[in-house]
């Protein structure tokens, strides 16, 4: 399911990043790789705050809906 639907406080595993080349590369550089754990730390109108590899990352809803988790 898309990361955007994950509820606050839940931890999921990344299965795919359905974005274009450059953004995909950047996501990888930030630790968004297949099988990586991602925890939803916060949520607001702009998007979500995630915890990936021990680092807080904020992203907008649009991008969060293109990252698939399980």
């Amino acid at each position, binding site marked *: 399911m898309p990361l955007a639907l994950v509820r606050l406080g839940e931890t999921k595993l990344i299965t795919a990043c359905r*974005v274009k*080349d*450059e*953004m*995909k*590369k*950047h*996501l*990888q*550089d*930030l*630790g968004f*790789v*297949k*099988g*990586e754990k991602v*925890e939803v*730390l*916060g*949520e*607001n*109108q*702009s*998007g979500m*705050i995630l*915890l*990936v*590899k*021990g*680092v*807080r*990352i*904020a*992203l*907008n809803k*649009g*991008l969060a809906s293109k990252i698939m988790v399980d």
Partner: protein
Amino acid sequence: MSINIALAGNPNSGKTTVFNEITGSKQHVGNWPGVTVDKKEGTYKKDRDVKVLDLPGTYSLSPYSAEEIIARDFIVNEKPDVVINIVDGTSIERNLYLTLQIIETQIPLVIAINMMDEVEAKGDTIDFNKLSEILGVLVVPIVARKAKGLNHLMEAAIETARNKKKPNNVQVFDKNIDSALLKVEQLLEDKSPDERRWKAIKLIEGDEVITNGLSDDTIKQVNIIVKEAEKEADGDTEAKIADLRYKYISKILKGIVKKSEKGHVSNKSDKLDKILTNRFLALPIFAMIMYLLFAATFSENFLLIKGLPSPGIWLAGLVEEGWGALTGGIESILSNAGASDWILSLVIDGVMEGIGAVAGFLPLVLVLFLLLSFLEDSGYMARVAFVMDRLFRHLGLSGKSFIPLLMGFGCSVPALMASRTLESDKDRKITMMITPFMSCGAKLPIYAMFAATLFAGSNKTIIVFSIYMLGLVIAIISALLLNKFAFKGETSNFIMELPQYRIPTGKSILIHGWDKVKGFAIKAGTIIFVSTVLIWLLSNFNFTGMVDMEDSFLASIGNAIKFIFAPLGFADWRASVGVVTGWIAKENIVATFGQLFGGIGDEATIEAISSGAQALPEIRDVFTQVSAYSYMAFNLLCMPCFAAVGAMKREMVSWKWTLKAISFQMVVAYIVALIINTLGNLIF
């Protein structure tokens, strides 16, 4: 022997703090050619033969952003004697991803594990010796904020540079990728062995910049190898390589990092984020902080106490007073020495006033940037950008555009400089083009003059307020239009690391703020100075020599160009001259009008007109209510003062783009004033 050291590391890893600590005051901040990315160079404070360069903060050496291209080109092409990689010990796993890529270039390397105090506070331990052994590089624990471990770090760096010690050739990849790498390396025989390996990895990652440097034939062969390798890499070698790097890091860290608790423990930053990025609280809190920031810089009635100047205004007053005294002193020395009138006028009205215009801005710029540096270094600015993103996305801009636009209501100069924090080139340019539409403090006297003279009565406040709103509305429309027609590409997604909240050190804020002010004073200062002297020449001379402004070149120019303004409702040479003198500083329009319309030369009367306390009835001969409104709108929107143009040039790093922005503002000003004048005359 001189040694060149480059600092590399993730954003927020404390790289700049390390740089400031090891170079002390001996540093130089410039720009990398052609981009607005700071280039900081300095020398080691304990050994002047050691040069230190602070590379931009990057997550990777792939060409995702200008910063990453700069960092990798420097490491690969300029080959520093040693790279110091600053690693945030609290997120060592993610930070080592960049480290592995630096190791791939086989440049001599030293790793500094920063923020060790926070690691220890959590009860975690890191086995530096083991990490050092595996990677074949020296590893030094440091606490940059407290200047701990830096001597040891520099000793390690100098030793590594002297020995030219390369890192271990670590085995990160699997059989499939390794065999593909070997095949690609064979195609690159003309390159040196280290370069071959690095380029081969980049080619399999599908790096376009490296691919473009090859012959068509080689590209074809590389593509075949990559296609072959993809079969065993789930169809994506690039993702596979990233995955293998992270797997390798996890594997080696298992025996190196010992955590006291499993999983993520909610800490101070999480608690603050619950409030500061909260769905309902985030915006009100932000509005309050911005109000304080703004008030501390520009307010004449700080904290709502009447007559209490803010630190910014207070400092600006001091500088102005000092400058006035200095000018007076020079004036009396010159006249005592028997200097001719024109020399006196050149020095006092031209040179001193020109430099004074710059000097008067500096305290405001300084205070604003010190406060902004505080917010930035504390980690709050990253949250602001995130919280504002939703709103600005509707305009096709990023949340990070908010700060410059808000600051534009105070002064365009620091506002334009603040646009530097936007990474997207498109967002930065659009933001800079519309920032001057936010009515700055210097434009208020113009409105006050017209309001007192032509709109006397109860609607004065509404007139002034409506001009501010007009600027805002035009800025929003411009952003939408520029996004739709002038710039390609959709609005980029928002993704940003939110660093831990930290109380910034006074030293880092001062260095941060001082850099900005120095840069402004030098670059914008030159442009302001030259233009002020030029306008002085034009307004005091004609072919016969020195004359009054009525007979000067500027008056002739005013007469020659006034027809342009006829459709806007003010075809008068004095009004045209006002537009021109407004480019030195917008509040100059009042002084120009006072002199040209009323023959008023004394400061006190001009002050009274500027504050709206006194009217200037003579302008009623030329202006109606409608044409006055059109004139105000035109001066609000047309080219900002030279100081702002100087700042714009500095931030855009291109005369072409600066001219494009000015032209855009001129056209917008003309169209808006034309509409106001035409519609206004139909209605009233």
